[in-house]
Each structure stands twice: as structure tokens, then as C-alpha cells.
């Protein structure tokens, strides 16, 4: 197995705080929100697993030495990951054909999905949304945005369509919240929760 400290990019004599900080940064970087509909999502997931394992190994090894650790933290992130992957389950109740197309897009079988979409009889909101997803995965972002816009205007109350549109808009993207940009204001997301848990955990161990 690779050196867990190397995975987190820190030296073995880093303090517990530094380990936590490095872990939090890595976990943010590879968070599934940053890889929605991304053809590299599987690589990011692998990386996330590696980071989680490295953090667990370090905290376990340090527990013997008396260092306080926040083990609830890693579980928070790993559960975040599995829920992130299922963003498409929302409207599985729609026609079976569309479900098949969704599966094809999720599996990266873009040619097949494109073929099915070409044959689809109706050009409704869902069709536009799926076309947008297809183009997004191909990296054709201008066309993707046009389709997402059309889907969102045909069905303005659909949460999924609006989220997709936000994803390709510069102003309000998930990257802003979890990536390198300034943190989101006033929201309560997974990171806040983890931070809160971490703080609580530190208070518990205050009398060590």
C-alpha cells in the first residue's frame, strides 16, 4: 500500500490538525459534486477512496499514540459520495425509453444514447434535458446549455433541470461551493456539517 502521508500530501510529523486540514482539502477537491456527469467521475471516486483510506490509516495509527481523532468525519464524506452518484434516480418513473437513455449516458455509452434520442418521437422537456446531459458529457458545453435552458423553460418547476442549468452557468456552479472559490454564503452543506462535527468532537476531547 502507498504511504498514507504521501496520499494526503503531508509529512509524517504533521500535527493532527494538519492531517485533518489536508484531509478536508482533499475531500473537497474530489467531492462527487465536482464530478457530476464528468467522464472522469470513476477516477475521482477512486481517488476519494484512497484519501479516505489514508486518513483512516493515519488516525488509527495515531490513536495508540494518544492523538484525538475525528472518525465521524470520514464517514460523513463517504456517505456523501454514494448519494452524489445517484443524482439521476429522481425521475425514473418517466417513460422506460428515457430511463434506458439515462442509463446509457451514465454508463458513458454516448453513441447509443444519441441514437436513441434521435429516434425518440417527442421533443419534450425530458428529451431536451437528456440531450443536454449527453452534450455535457461530451464536453460540448455551449450546446449543452442551450438544451438545458430549453428543458428548464418547458418545465420551470423541475429541480433537476434547474440544477443542470446551474452546472453549466458560470455564476452559480457547484464548483464555487466546494472547489477552490470562496465558500458559499449562508448555505448549510456537507462541509459545514463535518466541520460542526469536528468542532463538537474536539470539545469532547478537551480534557485529554
Amino acid at each position: 500500500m502507498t504511504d498514507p502521508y504521501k496520499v494526503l500530501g503531508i509529512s509524517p510529523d504533521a500535527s493532527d490538525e494538519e492531517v485533518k486540514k489536508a484531509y478536508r482539502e482533499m475531500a473537497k477537491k474530489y467531492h462527487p459534486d465536482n464530478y457530476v456527469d464528468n467522464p472522469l467521475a470513476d477516477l475521482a471516486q477512486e481517488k476519494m477512496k484512497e484519501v479516505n483510506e489514508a486518513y483512516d490509516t493515519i488516525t488509527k495509527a495515531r490513536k495508540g499514540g494518544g492523538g484525538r481523532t475525528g472518525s465521524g468525519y470520514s464517514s460523513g464524506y463517504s456517505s456523501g459520495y454514494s448519494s452524489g452518484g445517484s443524482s439521476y434516480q429522481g425521475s425514473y418513473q418517466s417513460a422506460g425509453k428515457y430511463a434506458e437513455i439515462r442509463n446509457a449516458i451514465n454508463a458513458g455509452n454516448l453513441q447509443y444514447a444519441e441514437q436513441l434520442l434521435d429516434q425518440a418521437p417527442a421533443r419534450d422537456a425530458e428529451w431536451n434535458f437528456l440531450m443536454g446531459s449527453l452534450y455535457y458529457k461530451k464536453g460540448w458545453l455551449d450546446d449543452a446549455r442551450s438544451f438545458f435552458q430549453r428543458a428548464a423553460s418547458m418545465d420551470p418547476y423541475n429541480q433537476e433541470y434547474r440544477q443542470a442549468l446551474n452546472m453549466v452557468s458560470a455564476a452559480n456552479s457547484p464548483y464555487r461551493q466546494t472547489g477552490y472559490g470562496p465558500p458559499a454564503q449562508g448555505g448549510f452543506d456537507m462541509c459545514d456539517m463535518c466541520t460542526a462535527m469536528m468542532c463538537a468532537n474536539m470539545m469532547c476531547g478537551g480534557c485529554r
Partner: protein
Amino acid sequence: MFGYIRPCAEEMKIREFERFRALYCGLCHELGREYGLAGRAILNYDFVFLAMLLWGDAGTCDYCFRRCLPGFCRRRCVTKSAPPLTAAAGMSLILAYWKAQDGVADSRGAKKLGALAVRGFLRRAYKKAAGKYPEFDGEVRRRLEDLSRLEKARSESLDEPADKFALLLSSACEAGRQEDRRALEQLLYHVGRIIYIADGYFDLKGDLKDGNYNPVAARFGLTDAHVPEEVRESVLETLMSSARLAAAAYELLPASYWTPVTRNIVYLGIPQMIRQVLDGTYQTAVRGRPKHPARLPDRTESEL
């Protein structure tokens, strides 16, 4: 291919900047050593970025001091030759040659003569490079043929021609390590897409004047140099989305000796370039005029 991909120098550490400059000189020397004067003439920042990405686990860099024509009086610090540098030099030459070839096919009159001269000048060097990287050469030629077909047909899609150019650049990932290929390919794809669209926007005025095909003008039906606000917004969003996807792919590459510089380029240099191209300040910004310290923006975080 056009020198758009450069770091945001104000945010670099001085040692990073010095190393970057040494690599730039090193690539120039490498091109000179392998391909003669014709090789040196094609040097630009995009190829230096490519060399850094191809670095992989080649470890630290060796430096030496050398003279060159523009800096004859003083010996400059340059990087010594290394395998990633050689690969980047060969691929750069192939790209530059096919770009000149493209210019021959597309232009008329005096410009055509100029393009013919450039192509003739690069010909021998190109043959040598193509012998080394035949697969890459074939890929670039095919993609450029597709691209010029789309441009002749005056395609109204922005993504389709950009896709051809992006695929062309992303095929350079073959020189990277096997396990990094997928992330590298995706990163280069989006960088290529950004270069193509930003260059289209930058050339908008000239292309409209000469009646040449311009992807941005064709996509939004522009007929004069005035760009409506919503068009600018739309181009900004598509470019920034690509920059974010490039950054997401970049994060999946392992760290290398050049990580501090490439990180700066991905998170600061590219967004800054996009913003400057879109608000029309790019040309003055890259001319290297003295900068007024009070007017430099305070920015340590990424704009992505």
C-alpha cells in the same frame, strides 16, 4: 498553439517564475537543437504548458547557463534537455506546421504568400518530427481536415469545430504516462476548446472585416464588431465551464515538479486570460507594459 495559456505572473513565487522562464528558454534550446532555427521560431507559451503536463514523474529539473541570440550579452539560466521536453518540442513542431498548412489553404493574396513561406520554412523540421510521432501527426492532420471542412461549410455550431480542435490537442496525451492518459486527455480537450473559442472571439473583428469564417460570429449571427452583452455572457459561461472541467481533470493528475506553475495556470492564468479576451484588454495585458502596482487586482484565490 497561439500562446493563450500562460501563468498569472503576479501571483507566482519568484522562484516559480524563474523556473518557468528557464523552462521556456529550455524548450527554445531544445527546439533549436532538434530542429534548427525553424524550430525556435514556433516557440510559444502553450507548448511550455504542454511540456510541464508531460513531465509526469521525470523528477526535478537540471539547469545550466547558456547564451542565445536575443540574450547574447548575458548567459541565461535554462533547463537541460529531458524526455518530456523533447516530446513537447516534436509535438509543437507538428502542430505549428499543420497550422501553417491550414493558413495556406484558408487565406488569399499576400497572406497566402506569407503562409506558404512559413510552411516552406518549417518543412524539413516537420519531416523529422513527423517521423518521430507518426500517430500524432496523422491524428492532427485528420482533425484539421475535419475542422477546415466545417469551416468551409460555415458551421453554425460553436461546439462542433471547437470539438475538432480540442480532439487534436488532446491526442498529445499519448506522450504522457499510461495511467495519467485519461485525465490528461480530458484536460487537454478543454484547454484546446478554450483556445479555439477564445481565439475565435479575439479575431472577431478581423475575421468579419475580411469575410473569413469565425465560429463565434457564425454561432450568434454577428455581422459587425459590436458584441451584445448576452452573447458575451454566453461565451464567458461556456469558457468558464470548460475551465472548471479542465481544473477537475487537472486534480486527477499526480503532482510533479511543475505542479506549482501548472496549478497557477489552471486556476489563475486561464480564467484571467478568458476575462481579458472577453473584455478586450487581452492585447494590452500581454504586451508586457509596466504595471502600476496599485492597479493590480488583489487575488490569491482562484476565479473558478
